[in-house]
């Protein structure tokens, strides 16, 4: 018994290298983001970056605009994605898993390639690039991320709840609004997580879809870092990070939200 215990002890110590790895490559970099955000280029502690952010309207405006675009994108994705997930979980297709996989495959194609292909599509049907194409392109990119979590939840939903409601005299509409929809909310929340925040933080997508006419928050971060304004860029990243932490507090089914879950 002692020997086994000793060995179990050793197996648990296998997590130590990863702990060290994560401390260096995950935790320390995030600490550096915070440090850089409150420093001037000479390395002195300062609130100047915060002041610039508040006084200079550009970053704040871009943030507000990005939140707006992300909101519209999320709503369209729910409106289009929920029915799709519902149908996929109910209708008998000859090969259901292939149908689901078809919806997920675009997630695994390089985001730049997808976006350039979308731009090509707009060029092909002669639609000028602007705010409309930006939203359309965003929906294109993020719809699969909304469908997957909703589908996963609907798939797992215990059918006997629905049968019980029907037995108790509810019509189809009532079954949906009183049973299916409330029970599938965790999937919708996961979907929102996977669409809303990434829309704000992407940079190349907006750039390519609007010929660089419309900037999202991610673009501003990237421009600052690229132009050597590391401290201001770090502050903007910190603001983004805080937004992510706050929204994550509303989501407890983290692991199911991972894009990997459904397909692999």
């Amino acid at each position: 018994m002692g020997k086994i215990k000793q060995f179990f002890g050793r197996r648990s110590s296998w997590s130590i290298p990863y702990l060290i790895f994560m401390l260096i490559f995950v935790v320390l970099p995030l600490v550096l983001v915070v440090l850089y955000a409150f420093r001037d280029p000479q390395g002195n502690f300062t609130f100047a970056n915060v002041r610039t952010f508040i006084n200079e309207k550009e970053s704040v405006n871009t943030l507000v605009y990005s939140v707006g675009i992300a909101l519209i994108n999320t709503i369209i994705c729910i409106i289009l994605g929920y029915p799709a997930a519902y149908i996929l979980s109910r209708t008998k297709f000859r090969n259901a898993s292939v149908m689901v996989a078809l919806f997920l495959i675009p997630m695994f194609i390089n985001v730049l390639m997808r976006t350039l292909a979308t731009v090509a599509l707009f060029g092909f049907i002669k639609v000028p690039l602007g705010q409309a194409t930006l939203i359309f392109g965003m929906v294109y990119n993020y719809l699969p991320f909304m469908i997957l979590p909703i589908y996963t939840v609907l798939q797992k939903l215990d059918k006997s709840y629905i049968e019980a409601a029907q037995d108790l005299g509810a019509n189809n509409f009532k079954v949906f609004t009183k049973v299916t929809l409330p029970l599938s909310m965790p999937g919708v929340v996961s979907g929102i997580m996977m669409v809303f925040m990434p829309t704000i933080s992407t940079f190349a997508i907006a750039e390519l879809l609007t010929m660089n006419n419309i900037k999202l928050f991610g673009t501003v971060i990237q421009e600052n870092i690229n132009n050597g304004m590391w401290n201001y860029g770090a502050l903007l990243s910190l603001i983004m990070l805080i937004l992510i932490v706050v929204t994550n507090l509303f989501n407890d089914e983290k692991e199911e939200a991972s894009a990997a879950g459904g397909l692999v």
Partner: protein
Amino acid sequence: MKTFLSKAYIWVLLVLLYAPMIIIGVFSFTEAKVLGNWTGFSVGLYRSLFTPGAHEALMAAVINTLIIGLVAAIVSTALGTVSAIGIFNLRNKRFKAVMNTMNNIPILNADIITGVSLFLLFVSLGVTQGYVTLTLCHITFCTPYVVLCVMPRLKQMNPNTFEAALDLGATPSQALRKVILPQIRSGMVSGFFLSFILSIDDFEVSVFNIGTNGLQTLSTFIYADSRKGGLTPELRPMITLVFVAVLAVLIIMNLRTKNNNQTNSLK
């Protein structure tokens, strides 16, 4: 009628989703400089793409992408598997929760912040960014997914089989190789493929960490190219080929999991 309508909705969505890729695919078979002009069927772009020396920068970017993807996938799978076994066997609940939370950070975090934060790490350590640092970045965001792929297999495993092997005289390392690894292999394979795909698809982390030595991956190459205005026409066949390759890998993976599920349910 209702089933017909809902099936029609699904198909319309799918056609819309795939329309961009299909257009790129179709126009990769014509030589026009601008996408949308059809100047007759031709495999000229494919030929020119693979002409030695014609598109060295693009080809170098593709090779870099594949090498980094492969190395990152191998290292992440090894590190992720060992770590998953370690975390799974942790007795201290609080420490276990801390490890799981840290593991989730790169998954939940926005790619741009992962990219910026790693950039700041290398800058403040004074490390020149290049091949090695970029691969390390990719390992950073791939390993958590491997842990998530292997962990469910460990949970499904009967813990007694390991002890039984020890009782029957196996050394701990034999028990690991002959008992644990075969049972978690499918999780490791999923983690490996997932890491590879995540790595070759990555753009937002790479763009901050390619450094200034002219290192390019396929994503950063496409980005730089599209910024210059006017895409290199040879990117059309390139994108088509990558699309077909990713499609093939995912279909194989899907069929494999399905077979696994069937054999599992047979047991």
